[in-house]
């Protein structure tokens, strides 16, 4: 496998922007693609703010940040990814959208370029099936917020070659991340457990067992968790929780994965979570986590 020097991140939403920070911080030349120039500009500002904070906290020096930011380049032209040795896709969780992106990338990128998907709920094998290079495809699911969280769930698809998976695994370690191997199974490990757990918490509120703040307090106090389920749901966002549930329930048909009605009512009421200033709790700002 060729050495990985240049990394492409397709999609600069919260996840994509975070992954790009991780890759650039680890010394890789990092191209970030999005069709929306304004989204690229926002991500750039948030990345600069994040690295400024890193300097403030003594984790990076100013000259290091200058190098990192010099290596972090946004583009609205996917053809720039022809220079990439590995591409991580972090776009909308829709199989058709991902297939269209990878089909285009397959024409642009050299044959040795490894493709990876940051999907949290879709099948790696199914995404790889529309990429034109199923044997050079791996699942790399980063955690939110990627720039702060070390975990990456890595899954081989049915046709992923051992050499590809090993190269992606080594790349993940070179990023300074902590990979764990899971089957290509809906939700992998984290979301398989988290989505139904959060749904169960919402159903406790729906059925009048306790108020969200009391449930958060109970889970944190009893289990030592850093966040209660509703604090976490507010960070994830109700709109995202709905999509996660639809993807998980659609593929597993497990009752606990089905979206509780309260989520849809909260979306209708504009209570999306941190990003709208109010979810199960109220917030004063919506700046990027960790900045």
């Amino acid at each position, binding site marked *: 496998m060729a050495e990985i020097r240049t990394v492409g991140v397709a999609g600069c939403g919260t996840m994509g922007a975070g992954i790009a920070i991780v890759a650039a911080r680890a010394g890789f030349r990092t191209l970030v693609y999005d069709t929306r120039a304004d989204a690229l500009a926002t991500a750039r500002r948030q990345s600069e703010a994040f690295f400024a904070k890193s300097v403030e906290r003594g984790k990076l020096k100013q000259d290091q940040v200058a190098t990192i930011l010099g290596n972090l380049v946004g583009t609205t032209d996917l053809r720039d990814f022809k220079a990439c040795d590995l591409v991580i896709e972090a776009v909308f969780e829709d199989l058709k959208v991902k297939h269209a992106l990878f089909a285009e990338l397959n024409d642009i990128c050299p044959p040795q370029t490894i493709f990876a998907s940051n999907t949290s709920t879709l099948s790696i094998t199914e995404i790889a099936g529309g990429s034109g290079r199923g044997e050079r495809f791996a699942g790399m699911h980063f955690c939110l917020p990627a720039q702060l*969280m070390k*975990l990456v769930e890595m899954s081989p698809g049915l046709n992923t070659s051992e050499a590809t998976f090993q190269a992606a695994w080594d790349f993940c370690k070179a990023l300074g991340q902590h990979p764990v191997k899971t089957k290509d199974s809906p939700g992998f490990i984290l979301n398989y457990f988290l989505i139904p757990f959060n749904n*169960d918490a919402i159903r406790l509120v729906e059925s009048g067992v306790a108020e969200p703040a009391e449930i958060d307090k109970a889970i944190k106090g009893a*289990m030592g968790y850093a966040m209660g389920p509703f604090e976490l749901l507010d960070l994830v966002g109700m709109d995202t929780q709905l999509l996660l549930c639809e993807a998980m329930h659609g593929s597993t048909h497990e009752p606990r994965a089905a979206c509780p009605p309260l989520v849809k009512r909260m979306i209708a009421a504009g209570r999306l979570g941190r990003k709208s200033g109010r979810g199960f709790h109220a917030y004063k700002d919506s700046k990027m986590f960790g900045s």
Partner: protein
Amino acid sequence: MPYCVIDTGASRSFPAAHALTQGAAEDGEVVVVIGAEVKRGLTRIREREQKTAVVLELGTECLGVYTGEARGTEGSNVLGFARFRLGEGEPSNLVELVRQPNTAPAALAAAKNLFEGAGLAVAVCNDFPGRIVDRLIRPYLNAALRRLDEGLATADAMDTTLKLGLGYPEGPIALLERTGLAAHFDVTQALYEALGDAAYAPARRARVAKQRG
């Protein structure tokens, strides 16, 4: 507010000396009944209705077992509580305080103050099987055991994922090993019977541990 503790033996919430039990008086406006014989402890309280609050330690049963229920209007100066504890593990710092629809606000406030005054965190909930914590974590623990059987990942990979991904201090498999799979069976079986929800049906590994004794 002075309070007293009636200890009926074998308390899961307070198996050892604690500020709450040590700070108790001979008599008081608040009465805490701990141990496995709560019903017997209740009969020892004189002029129960005159107390500001009577707080009963619960197991997997509902508070209504002791107070009776009345068309959704039940509630008095009697509350339930349990200090959350997993199997053989040490009791946590969290007390679930159980109220009913018409619980007296003064009783709720007094009970909450008492536990918080003893250094415990208090989460208030209504009177349902499993309260908050057991109701939420038992399906998660059953799913973890089932997915381990199905080969989703190794036990270490699952534990590491939940620790690094969600900041859990301990993954589900290590937690069950430490606190006891058979103890998990007992609680989740009780909730399965109470709620009739398959998510609480004990996972194979918990049943095996229980059968091994």
